[in-house]
C-alpha cells in the first residue's frame, strides 16, 4: 500500500490506500469528506466530480494513488467559515436543486467552468454541465443558478 500525500481544500493530507481505491472512496472513507457523492461508480453520472489541479475530473475514474502530489478541491472547500461561496449562494437563491444527491458534482463542475469562463452564455453552461445527471429538477433551475453566479461575479 503506497503512501500518498495530497493537498485537499488547502490542507496537506496523507494516506495509504490500496492501489484499487478510487479518489472518490479515498476522500469519503479515508479523509471523511463525504460531501463528494458516489452515484454510478463508472463515470456516467458526474456526482463524484471534484477539481484536481484546476480541472474538473470524475473522482470515481481516478485512483487515489494517482492524485498523490496534486491539489484537490471538493465541495467542502467552497464554503469558508460556515458561509456559502458565491456560486453556492446563487444556486441557493435560484432553488437550483432538490434532493441534493447530484449537487456536489454539479457545483464542482460549474465552479471549474466559471473559473475558466467568467462570462458564459446559456449554451456554454448547458454544454459544460452536460455530463452531470440530475433526476429531480429538469436542469433549468441549475442553469439559471450558474448564470446568476456569473452575472453577480461580473457585477463584483
Amino acid at each position, binding site marked *: 500500500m503506497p503512501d500518498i500525500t495530497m493537498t485537499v481544500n488547502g490542507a496537506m493530507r496523507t494516506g495509504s490506500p490500496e492501489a484499487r481505491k478510487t479518489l472518490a472512496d479515498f476522500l469519503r472513507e479515508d479523509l471523511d469528506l463525504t460531501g463528494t457523492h458516489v452515484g454510478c461508480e463508472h463515470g456516467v453520472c458526474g456526482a463524484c466530480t471534484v477539481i484536481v489541479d484546476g480541472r474538473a475530473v470524475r473522482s470515481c475514474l481516478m485512483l487515489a494513488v494517482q492524485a498523490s502530489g496534486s491539489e484537490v478541491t471538493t465541495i467542502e472547500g467552497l464554503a469558508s467559515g460556515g458561509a456559502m461561496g458565491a456560486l453556492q449562494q446563487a444556486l441557493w437563491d435560484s432553488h437550483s436543486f432538490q434532493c441534493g444527491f447530484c449537487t456536489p458534482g454539479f457545483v464542482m*463542475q460549474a465552479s471549474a467552468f466559471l473559473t475558466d469562463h467568467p462570462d458564459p452564455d446559456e449554451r456554454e453552461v448547458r454544454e459544460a454541465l452536460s455530463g452531470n445527471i440530475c433526476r429531480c429538477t429538469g436542469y433549468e433551475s441549475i442553469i439559471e443558478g450558474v448564470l446568476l453566479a456569473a452575472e453577480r461575479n461580473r457585477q463584483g
Partner: protein
Amino acid sequence: MKLPRFDYEAPETVADAVGLLAEHLDQASVLAGGQSLIPLLALRLARPAVLIDINGVTELSGISAVDGWVTIGAMTREYIAEESDSVRDAVPLLAAALPLVGHEAIRSRGTIGGSLAHADPAAELPAVALALDAEFVVRGEPGERVIPAAEWFEGYLTTSRGPDELLVAVRFPAATHGTGVSFQEVARRHGDFAIVGLAAALTLSGGVIADARLALAGISDVPVRAAGAEDVLVGQRPSTALFEEAACRATDGLDPPADLHGPPGYRKQVAATLVRRALQAAADNAHERQ
C-alpha cells in the same frame, strides 16, 4: 462496484513500461487516462492481474509539428489537444472531433492514445485517425514499429498492438491547403457514444475535389471508410447533387449492426444523412480556410 484487486506498477520511463509489458504480456492492462479502462474494471469486464499506470511517464505527453506531420504523445490529455494551436491549425478534423468526446470532465483525464488503443468503434477519435491515415508508433523491447491506421483497428476493442508493445505516439498528416473538415454525429444525448458518427475531410484544388476522406463510427466493429462515397467525389466539382449521390453510396458494402437504438436500415439512413451534412459543411469550411 469497487475495482477488483490488481498489482499496481507505475513506471516513469517508456523503457520501464515496455519492460513490464514484456514481463506480464496479456496479464497486464495499460492505464492511461482511465476513462474507459476504470469503468471496465468496475464492471468486471476487464480483470487484469497487473495494471501498468503510465501517467507518470512524462516523455509520453506532448504535441509537435514537424515536416508536415503532427505527432501527439500517447498520454497527451484530450483537453490539451483540444486547446493546442498545432492541432487546430494542422489537424482541423481532430480539433472538430475533440469537443464531442465524452464531456469536459472526461477530457480532463482522457488521452489521445488511450482512446485510440481502446478502439471503441463508436468513438470519435478512431474515425478521425482512419479518415486521415494516421500512423501509430508502438514500442516493444525489440524496438519501434509504425502501424498505419488502416491496419490498426482489428475488431471490437481490438488493435494490432502486440501484448508486449506500448502505444507511444500517433502521427497525423498536416492538412494541405484547400482542405475543409467536418465531424458529424447522432447520439441519443450529447456526450454519449454516437449511434453513427462521421469524420469528413475534403481537399479542393482549382474548384475540384482532389481528395475526399470519409470514415464512419458506429457502423461496424471497427471504424470504416465510406469508400463508395469517396469514389463518387474525387475529381468532381462540389455540388448538392454530387453530395446527394455520395450520400446514397455512404454504406455501400457495409452491414451495420442492429441494437436497441435501431435496426441496420436506420443506421444506413443516418449515415447517408451525415454524409450529406458533412460534405456541405466540409466544403464550406474549405472555402473559409482558404
